[in-house]
């Protein structure tokens, strides 16, 4: 097991290196350069040349990549990921600062998803073809088909217009000066709409998956045997079938993780949630190259970590898997 985890971790290093290479290449190929923002009539050409030399932009591309990458992997240093071209702050510190908001939003959405999607999926599978199953399947199909930004938009509309602002659709805390600003209750209140819009989509996907896996298990011989030997339906469903049906569901954890880390760009932008996604979006808008590169790397790291987690968890919960 330990050697397997080690092997898988080592395998993901070249992939992360590839992610760095591809994202660096995109930025290199793009027209424009980081010092364009200083190109004003007030800045002398010598100053620009000094800047080019300072940032090492006169060096060959591969040297630039090597110096960026070797600095980037030393993530324990404040200056490792460079400084923002917009506010001059350390990129690493800004990302670390923004991480909790994103994790809070994504983690809550994931929790809500698990609490609701698993029972919903089981219900649909146990009562296959009943009206409840049909309603759930329809909800899952439509929920899966609605683009996330549209769902977020409609939910923001519900919160602001239909419920007349009962739930805020902007930010993470109340405006300065309002009572109870920044208390857990205040934050929870602000989380209602963004969590709902993130969770609905996830629930749609997860419940479909749980239903399919549950049906697969319910049709297996050992379940029929359990029924035949006279066990109660509840015991068969929840003790014998459910345990095996949940094994593949565990892997969904890992696959949902990247969405939590970097994929909430759309939801965060609709609800102005001060997390990583919004940070990445503004970085692209401002052409803040160090920030953009760091964001892509964090996103890539999330995907790789998620896949690793999915594989390892699968091995942990399924005793048939041998390494």
């Amino acid at each position, binding site marked *: 097991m330990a050697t397997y985890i080690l092997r898988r971790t080592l395998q993901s290093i070249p992939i992360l290196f590839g992610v760095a290479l591809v994202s660096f290449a995109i930025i290199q190929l793009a027209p424009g350069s980081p010092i364009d923002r200083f190109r004003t009539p007030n800045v002398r050409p010598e100053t620009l040349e000094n800047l080019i030399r300072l940032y090492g932009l006169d060096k060959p591309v591969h040297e630039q990549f090597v110096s960026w990458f070797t600095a980037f992997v030393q993530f324990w240093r404040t200056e490792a990921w460079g400084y923002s071209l917009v506010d001059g702050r350390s990129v690493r510190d800004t990302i670390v600062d923004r991480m909790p908001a994103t994790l809070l939003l994504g983690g809550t959405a994931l929790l809500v998803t698990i609490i609701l999607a698993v029972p919903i999926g089981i219900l649909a599978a146990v009562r296959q073809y009943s009206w409840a199953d049909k309603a759930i399947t329809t909800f899952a199909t439509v929920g899966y088909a609605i683009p996330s930004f549209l769902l977020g*938009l409609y939910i923001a509309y519900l919160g602001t217009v239909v419920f007349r602002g009962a739930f805020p659709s902007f930010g993470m805390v109340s405006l300065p000066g309002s009572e109870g600003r920044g208390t857990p209750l205040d934050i929870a209140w602000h989380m209602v709409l963004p969590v709902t819009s993130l969770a609905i989509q996830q629930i749609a996907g997860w419940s479909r998956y749980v239903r399919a896996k549950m049906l697969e298990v319910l049709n297996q011989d050992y379940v029929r045997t359990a029924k035949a030997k006279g066990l109660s339906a509840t015991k068969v469903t929840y003790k014998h079938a459910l345990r095996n049906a949940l094994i593949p569901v565990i892997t969904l954890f890992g696959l949902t993780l990247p969405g939590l880390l970097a994929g909430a760009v759309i939801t965060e932008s609709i609800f102005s949630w001060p997390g990583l996604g919004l940070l*990445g979006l503004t970085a692209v808008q401002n052409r803040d190259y160090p920030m953009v590169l760091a964001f892509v790397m964090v996103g890539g790291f999330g995907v790789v970590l998620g896949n690793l987690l999915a594989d390892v968890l699968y091995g942990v919960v399924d005793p048939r898997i041998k390494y």
Partner: protein
Amino acid sequence: MVTDTTAAENERRRAEEAEAESADIDRTPVRTYWQLVRQRFMKHRLAVFAVIVLIVLATYALVVPVITGDAWRQTHLFRDDAPPELFDGDGEFTFAILGYNEIGQNLFARLGKATQTSLTIGLAAVVIIVVIGIFIGSIAGYVGGWLDNVLMRFVDIMLSLPGLFVILMITAFFGQGNVWVIVLAIGLTGWTTAARLVRAEFLSLRDVDYVQAARALGASPQRIILRHMLPPAMAPIVVAATLGIADSVVVESALSFLGFGIGGEGASLGTMLQNAQNYFFSGPLKVLYPGLTLILIVLSASFLGDGLRDALDPRQRVDK
């Protein structure tokens, strides 16, 4: 006596049945693959319905911008948020069945243009996805070995990139608002699934008898790939492409919604939604029209994909 007649009767009945059966077999028409496909597809009621919806939407997207001309971007000074109307003050027909938006643009005409833009970008991106996917996938699957390994690791890297964000990055850095940049950004990042699919098909076909026979007869790799391996692999590719249309349209709309796609004067479903977001209170319907159109496109494309998956699969049986 009684038993005799019944025995004779049974005999006769059995003979009749056998005759009817053989006649039935004779009467069963020989059905070609495409006839079977059509029969299987027609059984998929949702897919048939999806085709109708898609035809209606495509007609709308093609016809409305032609017959209404410039109406999709013309602003009318005194018609901001005006309710639906058929004739304007001069008694001229206006097509404003959906009313006007906040700057007095005809929503019916604008929605037509937006649907046209979004569908065109979606289709163009899928073409790129399929072409790159077939190219990379067929080479990886046919050649195998180290080349396959290299290409598949590249696919792994592409899949590890945060997709939507990279598309945002490409459109923002390479010319924002340019339709072709958007198409290329979606196409160049979205081919990985198609490539994996084609590779898997090719791997399973590589050692099939008829392919080996073609190789033994001295057919060139090009000929084997294009004439012998690609046609049987086409069914899953067509299904993936259909589903890919939905994804591409959604990505384009999301881009435009976030302000990285079609900008300025242009109309896409995403820009219409972004616009409408700022006018929640004055016109909720403005969010509804482009949103519904988008959902219809996505749902129809995925139902069509499901239907095609079952219909194109030769292993699926068709009952009489």
